[in-house]
Structure formats: C-alpha cells, structure tokens
C-alpha cells in the first residue's frame, strides 16, 4: 500500500538577525564608481587650496611672513598640477569604464589613493612633518578608506600611511631630505625639533593612525552589518506581505465561492429556469439572496480593506490619471444597480489629471457612489461632478444624493470600521459597514481631504479634494487623518 510520511519542524520563518562580522564585504562597481567620483570632486577642492597657497606665497609673501607663514619654492603649484592631471585621468578612466568596461572602478580608486598619499606626504614634508599639524590630514584618508573599503583594504591604506609618514620623518632625520617648517618664529625661521622629539612625535602619530583605523573600521563594520540585516529584514517583510496577500485572496475565494454557488442557484429559480414559483417562495428566496449578497459583499470589502491598508506607501505606484474618467467608469459599473432602483446619474465631469494609484481611487469612488445609490430613495438622482476647484487650486470630485442623509451625531464616526448609522442599517441591511473605512484608507494613502455635508432626511454630499501636485508628498506625510467638516444644506 502506498504511504507517505509527514514531519514538520517548528516554524523557522521568524525574522533572523544575523550576528557576525563581514570582513570581506565587497562593494559593487556602481558604489565604487560613485565613491571614485566623490574623491575626484573633493580633490578639486584640494587643488584649489594649493593654488591659493601658491598664489598667496608669490603675490602676498610679505603678508604671510607677518602672520608667521613662510612658503618657499613652487611645491604647492607642483603638487596641484600633479593632482589636477591625475584627476582628469581618473575622470576619463571612469567614463571609459562606463563605455567600454576598461579600467574597473576599484583599480581607479586604488590609484587615486596611492597618488593622493604620495602627494600628501610631499605636502606634509614641505609643511613640516613634526612641526605642524599637516600629518593629521592622513587621518582623513584612513577614515574614508574605512568607510568605502573592506577592513583588509582599509588596513592596507592605514599601513601605507604609517610607512610613508615614518619614511618622510626618517629621511629628514638622516638628512636625505631637508627639513621644512611653514611656520616662522618672530624674527626668523622657527626652531626644528631634535631627533628624540621627532621620533616621539612620529611614533605617537603612527600609533594614532592605526588606532583610528581600528576604531573606524569596526564602526563601519557594525554599520554595514546592520544595513545588511535591515535589507534582509525588509526582504522578509516584503515576502511575508506577499504571502499574506495571497492567503487573503485564497481565503476570500474559499469563503465567497459557496455563497456564489447558492446565489447562482437562487438566480436560476427566480429567473424561471426551474419552472414557476409562487410569490411567497420568490420573496423568501429574495431575502436569502440579500443576506448572501451582504455576506459576499462583506468578504470582498474585508479583502479590499486589507489590501489598501497593506499598501500604504503609494509613492512608487502613482501615475497620472484622469479623475473624470475614473468617475465615469465608476458610474458605468454601478448604472445597472442604480437603474434597478430607478435612480438616475447626473454626470458633470471635466478632465482633471492627478498623480494617484488609479485602482485605489476607483475603489474610493465606487464606495462613495455605491453608498449614494444605496441610501437614495427610488426615482431620485445622484449627482456626480468633478473639476478644478479654482479657489483651492486643487481637483475636487463631488457625489451628492438626496437620500436618507446622516444624523449629525453619527457624522464623526462614519469612517470607523463597521460603523453603520441606525437609519443606514434599517435602509440597507446588506451593507458591510466598511465601505467608508476603505474610502478613508485610500484618502490617507493619497493625502486627500474629504468634506461631508449632510442633512438628516435630505441627502448627503461627499467632496473629495486632491492635493496639488507639488504638495502631494507633504500632504500625505502631514495629513494622515481624514478631515470631516459639517455644514447644513439649505
């Protein structure tokens, strides 16, 4: 006999937060290219500073001397020229990579760092390797390498910095290279430090460089790990939401299908496809159908509400849509229901485009218009209009009925889930009570405002105002609650 064994492990679907290090986390070419471009931009600032220093030394040497600065030779201009030429080379190299994938951004960045460190060492030497704060400029390179590169690569940069700096100081101590100091004492050149002071200073700074590397690289590691965890968690949430939506659709289908089958059979009987039926039987079947219709409507409304609540962030889904066209389609869809109750539509819509999620706005209109029809009396008219509100400089859509209206004490609650005013429940027992909750959620998602004007027993007017294009995002962020204003209609 065929058999199959099932075994289930405990649910392993909770969000896992990965702990641990990411020593070799490699950045993509896109990110590296962006970093390379950023370095190129900042390097122009360094070139500008060097040019200013050289120009000042040439044309304002006396002024500089009075404040204690002495720049000899043409080293600022030389280094600026080297940086300028290399910057242009880096720029064209990146452009060539985009066009023909010649030199990878990583190689470009490494060359930039190498040339920068050599030029910076020259600046440090000419400024004064132990007499000025110039060596602290190395810290900037170490920090940037920790941010942009992996731990190993940033260590390589920190090590190179230490070697170059120690090399510069050593070459000055053994008198291979001369010793310089841009700062001058009053009346003459500033004193130079002795060997012990130089060694102490160089040693301390080297340890500082390695300490900075360690601290910033560890911090950078933690930040990158958190970023990866955040991305993983975001992906898990997205997948969970898709699963939830799929489940909701399946559940809706499973719950609604038996009701649809029941109502289809009722339609066969009441349609005369199964022979004649008495008026009493027809009446009872109509009641059964109404209750089944109410239940089916509730099931669909729950699904719709769940979906619009799940998609609160509509920023990526918006596109231009004509509000007038959406209203016209809505009226066409509901016309058979309206005509069955001898309710006419009076449409007066002009084209008016807004940025929105059309499916959600259509759902909003459908609920408002359906309510207008449901709560009108027979032989009445529902007026639907839309256009530009010149005063508010916004698009406004209005749906007005002459039906049962809403009592003043019920008005503040009409957008609550499952709320039904007493009159509404008596007039339309099949209502789910969450149609306006759907309207409210869509309005919140889009930053709309809705004005409800009603006189009990005389009718109701819903005015939906769409914010102007420039204010869309700010209105959505700031106005999460639907505004309800009450006004008596004469």
């Amino acid at each position: 006999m065929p058999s199959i064994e099932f075994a289930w492990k405990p649910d392993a679907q909770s969000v896992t937060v990965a702990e641990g290090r990411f020593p070799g986390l490699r950045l993509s070419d896109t990110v590296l290219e962006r970093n390379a471009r950023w370095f190129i931009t900042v390097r122009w600032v360094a070139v500008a500073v060097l040019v200013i220093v050289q120009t000042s030394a040439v044309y304002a040497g006396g002024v500089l001397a009075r404040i204690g600065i002495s720049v000899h030779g043409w080293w600022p201009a030389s280094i600026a020229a080297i940086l300028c030429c290399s910057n242009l080379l880096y720029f064209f190299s990146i452009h060539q990579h985009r066009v023909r994938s010649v030199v990878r951004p990583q190689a470009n960045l490494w060359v930039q760092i190498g040339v920068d460190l050599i030029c910076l060492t020259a600046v440090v030497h000419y400024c004064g390797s132990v007499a000025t704060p110039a060596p602290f400029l190395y810290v900037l390179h170490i920090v940037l390498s920790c941010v942009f590169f992996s731990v190993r690569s940033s260590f390589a940069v920190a090590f190179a910095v230490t070697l170059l700096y120690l090399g510069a100081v050593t070459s000055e101590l053994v008198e291979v290279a001369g010793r310089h100091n841009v700062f001058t004492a009053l009346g003459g050149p500033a004193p130079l430090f002795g060997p012990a002071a130089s060694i102490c200073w160089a040693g301390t700074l080297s340890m500082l460089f390695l300490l900075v590397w360690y601290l910033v690289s560890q911090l950078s590691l933690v930040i990158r790990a958190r970023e990866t965890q955040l991305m993983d968690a975001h992906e898990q949430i997205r997948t969970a939401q898709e699963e939830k939506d799929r489940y909701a659709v399946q559940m809706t289908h499973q719950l609604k299908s038996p009701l649809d089958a029941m109502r289809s059979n009722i339609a066969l009987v009441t349609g005369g496809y199964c022979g004649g039926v008495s008026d009493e039987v027809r009446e009872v079947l109509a009641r059964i159908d109404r209750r089944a219709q109410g239940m089916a409507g509730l099931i669909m409304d729950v699904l719709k509400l769940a979906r619009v609540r799940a998609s609160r962030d509509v920023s990526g889904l918006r596109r231009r849509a004509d509000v007038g066209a959406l209203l016209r389609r809505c009226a066409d869809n509901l016309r058979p229901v309206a005509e069955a109750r001898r309710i006419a539509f009076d449409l007066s819509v002009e084209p008016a485009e807004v940025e929105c999620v059309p499916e959600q706005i259509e759902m909003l209109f459908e609920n408002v218009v359906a309510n207008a029809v449901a709560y009108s009396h027979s032989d009445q008219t529902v007026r639907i209009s839309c256009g530009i509100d010149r005063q508010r400089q916004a698009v406004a859509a209005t749906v007005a009925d002459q039906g049962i209206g809403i009592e003043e004490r019920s008005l503040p609650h009409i957008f609550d889930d499952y709320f039904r005013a007493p009159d509404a429940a008596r007039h339309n027992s099949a209502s789910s009570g969450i149609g306006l909750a759907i309207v409210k959620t869509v309005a919140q998602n889009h930053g709309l405002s809705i004005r409800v004007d009603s006189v009990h027993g005389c009718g109701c007017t819903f005015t939906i105002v769409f914010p102007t294009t420039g204010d869309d995002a700010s209105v959505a962020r700031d106005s999460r609650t639907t505004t309800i204003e009450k006004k008596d209609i004469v």
Partner: protein
Amino acid sequence: MAHRIAHIDDDPDIRRAVRTILESEGYAVEDYASMGDFLKTLDKEQQHPSIAILDVMVEKEDSGLKAYDLLRTTCPEMPVVLLTSLGEMIRPYFEQEDPMVWIVEKPVMPEKLLSVVRSRVRESDSLSRRNGADG
C-alpha cells in the same frame, strides 16, 4: 448551427447554472471541471468553440490566468470571459485597459451573463467573417 461555448469551472453548481441559462438561449455548452481537460480537447479539435468562459481559481490559484494567456497566443480569435468570485480585483493582473479582458463577477446572474455572452459571440462572428473575407 448553435454557437458552441466552452465553460471551465470546478464548482458543479456554477457549471449547472451556466449550462441551464445558456442552453435556454440556444447555445451549445461544453463544460469542463479542469483546465487540463479543456486544453486537451482544444488540441484535438479543428473547430474551436465560439467563446470560452473561464473560472480563475480552478485547481490552482492562477490556472485561469495562465489558461487565458495561453488562449491569447494559441487561439487569439476566441473571445474569453473570466467568471470569477474575485471580480474586478483580478484586473491588475492584466495590462491596463486591455479591451479583450472581460471580467464577470460571480454569482451567475442570467441577464448579465447573457448580455456578456451575446456581445462576445457577436465579436467572434465578426472576426470569423473578417478572416473568411481575407481568405
């Protein structure tokens, strides 16, 4: 000769209701409980039905949508009606404003079903006449 209408739905009550309504109007209804059975028959037959009425969630949650895509490529001349409990909620699965997508929400209401079927059969007839005229 009566127009042939194929109907695929795993719910026997729905199949019975559709058959009863359409046969009373003189259509010949061929109903299937699974997409697989319908597609096999389609492969064997030379003459395809005038229109196909598909449920969306038959056996699997999107088998109706997959069958629709298949029919659009293999039998583009055959109009399709999607008869589904989910109604317009499945509209986002199709290209925006695709005029070939006709969605009817269950339950099966005779007037609505007949109105849609008549429109689609008219389309099918005019397509056949145009293809016949083109040779």
